[in-house]
């Protein structure tokens, strides 16, 4: 479903918001969500604390690990360095909404999720939602043609358990299923 852009767009002076909580509408996993947040709050914190979508993980909060990877308007980005308020009018997709756009996903997995399980592409699982959101993005961008390319284009997601060879195997398998 379409998410409307913020209605207020007169001169910037008129539209100054914050620093206290302000009403923000976010389209997340196909649903429009209204929240009251301070402008300084990151998309990651909003997803986890306000919307109880804890699939996106806080690993560093400074753009160095990739555990918070989500999609904004279909592109993989880091939720920790994205202010939530800047996402008004954009479509946010998290791991919870990957299998089905409505975020329910009951029982159904995205092929990438299935292959991550089949290839044992994770151990502790903490970086996994970020890996999967990044992996699907990597395939969609056309950067998964061979292992060398997957290696480079998946290097923004650190897996400290070092499941990397299996992550590549899962991406190859999911890529070949599509």
């Amino acid at each position: 479903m379409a998410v409307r852009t913020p209605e207020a767009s007169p001169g910037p002076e008129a539209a100054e918001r914050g620093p206290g909580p302000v009403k923000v509408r976010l389209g997340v996993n196909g649903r429009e969500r209204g929240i009251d947040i301070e402008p300084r709050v990151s998309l990651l914190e909003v997803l986890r604390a306000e919307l109880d979508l804890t699939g996106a993980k806080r690993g560093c909060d400074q753009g160095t690990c990739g555990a918070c990877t989500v999609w904004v308007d279909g592109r993989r980005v880091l939720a920790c360095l994205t202010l939530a308020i800047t996402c008004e009018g954009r479509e946010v997709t998290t791991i919870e909404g990957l299998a089905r756009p409505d975020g329910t996903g009951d029982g159904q997995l995205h092929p990438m999720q299935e292959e991550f399980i089949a290839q044992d592409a994770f151990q502790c699982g903490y970086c996994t939602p970020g890996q999967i959101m990044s992996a699907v993005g990597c395939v969609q961008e056309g950067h998964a043609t061979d292992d060398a390319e997957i290696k480079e284009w998946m290097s923004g997601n650190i897996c400290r358990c070092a499941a990397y060879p299996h992550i590549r195997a899962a991406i190859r398998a999911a890529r070949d299923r599509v």
Partner: protein
Amino acid sequence: MSTSAEPSTSPIGRPLDRVDGRAKVTGAARYAAEVPLPDLTHAVLVGARVACGRITSIDASEAERQTGVLAVLTHENIGKIAGQPPLLPSLAGTVAPGETFFPMQSDQIHYAGQQVALVVAETYEQALHASRLVRVEYAEQPSVTVIDDARDQAYEPEAIFAGFIPGRAQRGDVAQALEQADVTVDNTFSYAANHHNPIEPSAATAWWEGDRLTLHDTTQGVTATQHTVAALLGIPHTRIRVVSHFTGGSFGAKAMIWHHPTLAALAARAVHRPVRLALTREQMFTGCGHREEQEHHLTLGADQRGRLTALRHHKLSLTSPFDHWAEPSLGVVGQMYACPHYEGAYHLIRANTMTPTFMRCPGEATGLFSLETSMDELAERLGLDPVELRLRNFAETDPASGKPWSSNGLEECYRRGAERIGWHRRAEPPARDGDWVIGLGMAASAYPVYGPNNPARARARVYADGTAVVQAAVTDIGTGVLTAMTQVAAEALCLPVERCRFEGGDTDLPHVAATVGSSGAGMVSAAVYAAATELRAQLVARAVADEGSPLHGADPDHVVVRDGRMMRGDAPDTGESYAELLRRNFLPDSEATGSWGPPPHDVPYAALTFGAQFAEVAVDPELGLVRVRRLAGAFAPGRVLNAKTARSQLMGGMIWGLSQALLEATHMEPNTGRWANASLGEYLVPVNADAPEVDVDFVDVEENLVNPLGVKGVGEVGQAGVAAAIANAIHHATGRRIRKMPITIEDLVVAPEA
């Protein structure tokens, strides 16, 4: 691919997909900082900015004025802990503080990053911002933070490691043997400090209901958290429930119990609301220990045929002001080869750091680098193939104790690893590929088999619907223990795995020690197997005694169970299922408990998990680049409970070895005593592009001694020796011996000193 039940085959060992896989790939898995709670508050810590001194003043007024701030706790108002429990390894199964010091009890600062204040606020952003506004003034004193600061202050401890390991060990007369040796190899090695950096930062969520405390903690052992927090707070451990369903990696960072769960509990008491306390990434460098900066001095003596006659291994490292801690780097080194004369000694320097701690492959990760690069040098000096040199020194029995090995398999590991990497390709001069020179190297691998000091317990229950649940208070930090235990339970209960569920991660469940030191699978499988076997026996006994059962009167020893159906061995058509038995007797379920261990201290065998590591590296000698192209390892870990998860653990360990060899170093800022690169941007761990294909092979050995299922563990041995194999491959490619970790660009670009 592997979940369909094959009733005739054993569930143990099968490459079953992880039972928690779905939760992890959908984001449904809840880690400690993700438990939803009403009225939750958020806490952020403030760390000391000096390494030694006193706090002269704390001004929290600006922080307290910020919107949403509920409390600023410092040593002036947080209250005293009840007492400091002793430092015991968490494998002991009782208290396990990371250091025998608790912060915020006085104005004294012992190390930079020491927690000096805790800000509690309505939201995370509010707490984080206010934490920056707590003004702490210090009277700074001179500090010691690197070995070079205080070599003259080194001392030889009686014992390290909570007194479990003597500070010095010897056999024979090493000095004389070295004097008489045909060849000696004598080198000093330096190893940077390392930090675990699991991607999940340590966190705890705490709340009180009256005098009862519930803690969700990121930990390798819920019982260790429970007992440690209880001792610090001075309340019975029975009033504390600790839950940890998912732990986002640990590698030792969460093996001991550090300060945050207790601080979260204190904060929750202060604000009368649930508190969530998560460390920032920077605080992960001063909140849960590290592998200490260290130097090794290792001397080998050998005869002309390459047989070792003497081995001397001294280690110098930094410990904290509180504890005699050194990772046990001298352990396996003294046991690896048949060498009659040995001397090992630890030397410590008290420094202004927190107490170092276990980090994956503790001790052996550094010790085996010293030994196995020295062995490579010895092979070179004698003109021997490195594999051949090791075969000549194969230890038929444990050289330290003289006892036979519980199982071995090392020679086969050498053969299989060599085959996997293509060791026969190792040529002089090394092969070239454009700007790259290709080197091959190898090293032996081994890791001790540890057992708990307390019994491991489990509970098994079969329901009248024919499903089973088996429980033990074990946490799955990514090892796959939940999956493996499901398989063990299914095997012992003779049920398909889909009808078994394993539950862990909760102190309300039967007690097991923390899963550390590669011991989890061995000790928990023993308890699970005991409980499930006992339950199966009980159900069979009930059936043969039950007049309503087709098995009535049968000899229980001749009843077999398959797929949850008990039947006469001689007449398989005669029988009934667990479910039928329970339903007929109006029983909702049936339950049994089981326990194992601890094994006696003086067993008549010695136990190590053996393996062999091989590495192929490409070195660009001009630009100083080293890229590992392939790793191959062969291991003999005894019984493998799940081939898939065990392979993953070994693979991960091997990449950890790569990481230690080439990337990981925490640099101390000598002027301030602070870690200078406390972020994942600057503390380098491998990314996908660094990780080569990894070949893992299992060597079967008959292991009947270390625990009932013969499980020796795979958590650490994958890492042991890898870094040495890589360094040896670099030497093969370049002729350079770099006796440090990590080996970085400047080591290869700068000309070797004459």
